[in-house]
């Protein structure tokens, strides 16, 4: 069990100052934002029975409200947001850096989630792309609230991509909606073919799985087809791409997948 995740001491880096229009955080020093307690609980009207109070509220309702706000904001911008989820070390940040190189003509921004350090945001900024690091402290996942604040600091252009790199963790991020258009699970070939069976929820929640580091496959006796079979066993509808961010194999298909999804969203917005 994660003992203190999703609360307490997340920080947002990258800014000397920040405006803040909520009013329930403490900003003691260094310009960091500390995610403490959110707004007070949910008022449930009409519940004055003698002994039993009907609640019928999702436990994650608060997160879902923040996620909905993020989703509305993204929709108004026609921006396409992906939530990149994986184990630590699957190659998310390298894949993102290479993706940014391939998308040179497209506006984009990156939110990096990790427990500590701004290393990943530094790596992204070295490519020239705007990035903001969210440190979750002891938290094991990003939540809708953190991402909403991070978005305030990113000047998202119309029709841009927003890449949200979640904390490396195949469990908790599955349950927390950030307002993204879809989750993308990244699985490196060194992790073992049964990963999707061991952590089904994450792969069920994902629209696309990227089988990364395929250049290493010959050295680690893995069966790439078995990876795909197991992914489809927990999510028969999932798209799967075989990629090596290092060699560039499969990158064209990945970029084309992304552009197609962004085009769909722009068309959908135009139709509404």
């Amino acid at each position: 069990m994660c003992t203190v995740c999703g609360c307490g001491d997340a920080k947002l880096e990258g800014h000397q100052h920040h405006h803040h229009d909520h009013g329930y955080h403490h900003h003691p020093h260094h310009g960091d934002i500390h995610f403490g307690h959110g707004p007070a609980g949910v008022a449930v009207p009409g519940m004055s029975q003698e002994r039993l109070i009907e609640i019928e509220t999702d436990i994650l309702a608060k997160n879902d409200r923040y996620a909905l706000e993020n989703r509305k904001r993204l929709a108004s911008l026609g921006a396409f947001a992906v939530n990149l989820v994986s184990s630590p070390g699957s190659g998310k940040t390298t894949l993102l850096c290479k993706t940014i190189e391939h998308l040179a003509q497209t506006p984009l921004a990156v939110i990096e989630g990790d427990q500590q350090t701004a290393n990943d945001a530094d790596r992204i900024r070295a490519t020239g792309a705007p990035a903001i690091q969210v440190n979750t402290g002891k938290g094991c996942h990003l939540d809708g609230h953190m991402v909403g604040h991070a978005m305030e600091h990113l000047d998202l252009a119309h029709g841009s991509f927003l890449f949200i790199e979640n904390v490396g963790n195949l469990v908790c991020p599955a349950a927390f909606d950030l307002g993204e258009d879809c989750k993308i699970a990244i699985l490196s070939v060194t992790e073992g073919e049964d990963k999707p069976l061991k952590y089904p929820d994450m792969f069920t929640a994902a629209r696309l799985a990227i089988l990364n580091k395929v250049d290493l496959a010959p050295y680690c006796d893995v069966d790439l087809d078995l990876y795909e079979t197991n992914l489809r066993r927990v999510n028969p509808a999932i798209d799967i791409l075989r990629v090596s961010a290092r060699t560039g194999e499969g990158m064209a298909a990945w970029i084309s997948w992304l552009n197609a999804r962004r085009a769909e969203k722009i068309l959908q917005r135009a139709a509404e």
Partner: protein
Amino acid sequence: MHEMSLCEGIRSVIEGATDRKVTRVRLEIGRFAGVEKNALEFAFDVVMRGSVAEGADLVFIDLPGHALCYDCVKEVEIMNRLDPCPTCGGGRLMPQGGDEMRIKDLEVI
């Protein structure tokens, strides 16, 4: 998975709903919600301290797991996430519910 933060969500909902002493909290938890009940019970005791629900009983109502079979195209009930389709034996099942995590009601005095 994140039972401590789930309990903080529960506490915030309870505190928004009542000032009275809560003696029982009933949760509806889907079979595929990924919630570890023992961990949730432990976290519940800890997180509710100092609140109106301190010492309250926690009761789970289990909700079934449903899935759509991509082989026979039927909606079926399964007990475990990796079970084969009980109708055709197929192995490609997409969950269609069962991930609920809901506070159903509170008993107060």
